[in-house]
C-alpha cells in the first residue's frame, strides 16, 4: 500500500521549467513583434530588392505612399490620417480624377495650412523635415514613379526614401 502512494506522487510532471521557457518566449515576442503598427502599407506591392539601404529609426513625420500600376495606369494610395483610423485613400496625380491630389497633400504637410513658406498663422508652420516613403512596385515603369517625384519636387519635399527589401528575388 505504501509503495503505491509514492508512485502516484511521481506521476506529477514538473511544469516549472516549461513555464520559465514559455514566459521567456512571451516576453521576447512582446518586445520584438510590432503589433498594431501600421503606416498604410499595401501588402500586395512587390518592393524591389537592394543590397544596400538604411533603416529609418522613427516613422514620425513621414508619409508613406504606395505606388503601383493597375491596368497600365498609376495608382497612388496612402493612409494620410492614421489618427482617425481611416484606411488607405487613393490620391490623384497630375492626370486628374476625383479625390485629393498628391501634390496638395504633400504641400499641406510640408508648408502647413497656409500652403506656403513662412508662418502667417500658427497652424501654417513649415515642416522641412517631412520624409516621404515611396513603396513602389517592382513591375511599374519609371514614368509612374516620375509623377510622384514631380509632385514631391513641386511641394519641396526633399527627403525621399525608396522602400526596398533585402530578400533577394527568386531566379
Amino acid at each position, binding site marked *: *500500500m*505504501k509503495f503505491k*502512494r509514492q508512485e*502516484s*506522487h511521481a506521476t506529477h510532471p514538473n*511544469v516549472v521549467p*516549461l*513555464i520559465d521557457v*514559455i*514566459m521567456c*518566449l*512571451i516576453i521576447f*515576442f*512582446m518586445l*520584438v*513583434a*510590432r*503589433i498594431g*503598427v501600421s503606416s498604410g502599407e499595401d501588402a500586395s506591392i512587390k518592393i*524591389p*530588392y*537592394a*543590397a*544596400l*539601404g*538604411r*533603416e*529609418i529609426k522613427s516613422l514620425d513625420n513621414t508619409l508613406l505612399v504606395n505606388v503601383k500600376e493597375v491596368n497600365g495606369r498609376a495608382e497612388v494610395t496612402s493612409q494620410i490620417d492614421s489618427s482617425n483610423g481611416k484606411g488607405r485613400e487613393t490620391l490623384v496625380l*497630375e492626370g486628374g480624377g476625383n479625390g485629393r491630389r498628391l501634390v496638395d497633400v504633400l504641400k499641406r504637410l510640408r508648408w502647413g495650412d497656409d500652403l506656403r513658406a513662412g508662418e502667417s498663422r500658427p497652424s501654417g508652420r513649415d515642416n522641412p523635415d517631412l520624409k516621404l*516613403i515611396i513603396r*513602389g*512596385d*517592382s*513591375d*511599374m*515603369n*519609371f*514614368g*509612374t*514613379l*516620375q509623377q510622384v*517625384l*514631380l509632385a*514631391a*519636387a*513641386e511641394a*519641396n*519635399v*526633399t*527627403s*525621399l*526614401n*525608396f*522602400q*526596398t*527589401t*533585402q530578400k533577394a*528575388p527568386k531566379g
Partner: protein
Amino acid sequence: MKLDRNKTIHYDSGPDMTPLVDVVMVLLIFLMMVGKFGGADRYLASNLPITSAGVSNTQVDPNLIPKDPVTISVSPLPPSGFRAFVGRTSASNDEQLTAQLKTLLAGLKAAGRKPEDIQVFIKPAKQLRYDNVVTVYTATLQAGFTKIGFQAAE
C-alpha cells in the same frame, strides 16, 4: 489516520499550474500570429526629389539643383534588363556599372572633388522598370557616390 494525511499532502503540494499554462499558451500563440517579424525595412534615401528637363507644370526650387553633376542615363533592354550610359561607357548589369562608376569617382577625386559634393543624377527612360531603377541606384551607392537624385525623362 497517518496514511491518509500523507496522501493529501502529496496531491496538493504546489499550486495548480494548468490554467496558467493554458492562458500563457494562448498569449504565446496570439503574439506569434499577430506580430510582424523580420528585419526592419530598408530605404534608399535621396535628398533631391527630381530635376525637371522639359517637364511642364512643375516649379522646382532652383537652389536644389547642384553644379557639375554626373548623369547616368538608363534605358530599358528587353525583356527586363537595362543599359546604363555614363559618359562614353555603358553597362548592362550592376557589377559593370559599379566598376565604371568607381573608375569615374577615382578620376573626379584626383581632380580634387569630394565624393560627398558630387551630385549624381539617374535619368531613366519612362519605360524602365522600377526594379532596374533601384539596381542602378544601389550600384551608384556601392561605387561610393552619396548624393543621388533623379532627372525627369522627357
